[in-house]
């Protein structure tokens, strides 16, 4: 008889119930009902028969069985079974908005770290060049690529395509995209960012928010639409500038408050959307708490409790 004892760090965790759940999951009569849609599985656990179902991401086939290879939630679309992990690197899709950091300047291309399994590629031909959007790239552009983006620069871009090996190619050929300045980067797990109607949000306190689908979030000073560079023609000086504008203390405070709110939400695994951030920001202002206090455990718990109860009071109707 092999005996083991476990300290689960949480006294309320009941080992027995855990095992009972596990016994149920071992049932070979696997039916994908609505309740079982939220079933948690982990590597090596048999999900279903491979005769009736197709294997998707997070699974593999061994003999007659479809087996999970990651820990997460089982999802099913018709005959396709996938397991979605709750913590993983970013899986890019064409059209996604991402925020990245230049890691390398290579001939006619930049390498960009975008929290994916490989660095993304930003081709010289996929950026807006000074002197008009329609301009062709010249040899002189290739020689002065560091004038546009240097190692360490942050940028917002869109996923344009994939290469044969699965690496993504980015583009910044829109006035919305390009180099980032006047702000702060916060990194959260990519699953917490869902696809929204717009990933550019303006909070009322003079703060702009860019939610990159790769889990990188940019919080910056608000730029009024009529002041945005490149609206009238294309001002390369301003778009590729490495200098921050003057940021007053109130805005700096607001940026820090938003970034701490996002850290607090992420630490409790709450998805980050503009609505939630706004609600949490209003709560933080109401509490009149110091910005740095938002990082304390009990303040974060109170924040989560506040946005949950508020939702319950107003109700879905």
């Amino acid at each position, binding site marked *: *008889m*092999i*005996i*083991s*004892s*476990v*300290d*689960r*760090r949480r006294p309320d965790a009941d*080992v027995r119930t*855990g*095992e009972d*759940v*596990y016994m149920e999951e071992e049932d070979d009569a696997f039916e994908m009902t609505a309740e079982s849609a*939220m079933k*948690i599985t*982990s*590597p*090596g*656990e048999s999900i279903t028969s491979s005769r009736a179902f197709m294997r998707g991401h*997070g699974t*593999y086939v*061994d003999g007659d069985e479809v*087996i999970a*290879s*990651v*820990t*997460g*939630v089982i999802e099913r679309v018709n005959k396709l079974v996938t397991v979605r992990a*709750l*913590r*993983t*690197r970013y899986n890019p899709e064409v059209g996604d908005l991402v925020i990245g950091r230049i*890691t390398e300047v290579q001939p006619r291309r930049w*390498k960009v*770290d975008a929290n994916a*399994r*490989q*660095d993304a590629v930003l081709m010289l031909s996929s950026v807006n060049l000074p002197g008009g959007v329609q301009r062709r790239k010249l040899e002189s552009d290739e020689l002065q690529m560091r004038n546009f983006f240097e190692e360490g620069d942050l940028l917002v871009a869109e996923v344009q395509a994939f290469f044969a*090996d*699965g*690496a993504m190619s980015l583009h910044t050929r829109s006035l919305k995209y390009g180099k980032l300045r006047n702000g702060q980067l916060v990194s959260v797990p990519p699953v*917490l960012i869902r696809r929204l109607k717009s990933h550019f949000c303006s909070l009322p306190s003079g703060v702009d928010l860019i939610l990159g689908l790769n889990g990188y979030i940019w919080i910056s000073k608000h730029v009024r639409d009529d002041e945005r560079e490149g609206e009238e023609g294309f001002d390369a000086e301003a778009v590729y500038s490495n200098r921050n504008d003057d940021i007053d203390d109130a805005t700096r405070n607001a940026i820090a408050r938003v970034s701490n709110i996002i850290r607090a939400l992420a630490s*409790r*695994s*709450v*998805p*980050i*959307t503009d*609505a*939630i951030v*706004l*609600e949490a920001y209003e709560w933080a202002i109401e509490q009149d708490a110091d910005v740095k206090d938002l990082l304390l455990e009990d303040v974060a718990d109170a924040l*989560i409790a506040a*946005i*949950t109860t508020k*939702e319950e009071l*107003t*109700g*879905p109707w």
Partner: protein
Amino acid sequence: MMSLRIEILNEGGFRSDGRRQYELREITFDSTTQASSDGSARVTHGLTEVLVSVFGPREARVRSQTLHDRATIHVEASIAPLSTGDRRRRGRGDKRILELAAMIKATFEPVVQTSLYPRSQIDIFVQVLQQDGGVLQAAINATTIALINAGVPLTDYVCAVTGGAHAAAPMLDLTALEESDLPHMTVASMPRSGRLTLVSMETRLHIDRFEEILRLAGEAGAVIHKEMRAVVKERTKGLLEGMSIGLRVSKAAEEDAMVENE
């Protein structure tokens, strides 16, 4: 006459720390450390404590070592000088440390589905914080949890345990004291298929004992697997709860916004 040596297994069938022959030490798992990594785990087996952080799959830093059809696994181990009695500083090039890293790499290469991530690299950093026997077993168990926390696809859990033999009596989960006296081996098994990914022996073991220890280690692996799975699922459940709070709140906020717009 009392001998100065501590009895490994006394007549009552108890070991020097009060355990029975096949009794494992207390196991704890902690996944909350190292927020900057993609996945991490701190595992203790009794007084042995190992911290593992996983980064990746990410862009390979050494381009010459990238493989075009799968990810490379890179393991780096370090042993804290304070982790053991004789306070010896071991550098990164130390043979013991390189061997530990190589064994962990060899254990996980057949289990991680590296072919899903061509040209990438998975970095595993192992830090031994305290040693009281079974460092390799603790490192392997911690790496399994850390890889699962990082969302790296594995074909199965890997559960490791040490086994040894005192006279004709096999024992499991040896302490440093027992390890220094007994012939022993470390076995890493995959509970679903029952296959072994590592059998490591540094001492000579009688062939008659070998089979018995191997079988016992397989059973002990199943027990450790159950504990690991319970911990992993509990953590996942916690993450899911946070996600569902967010879903409810954002849905309510969206409806609020719609009402305001009207």
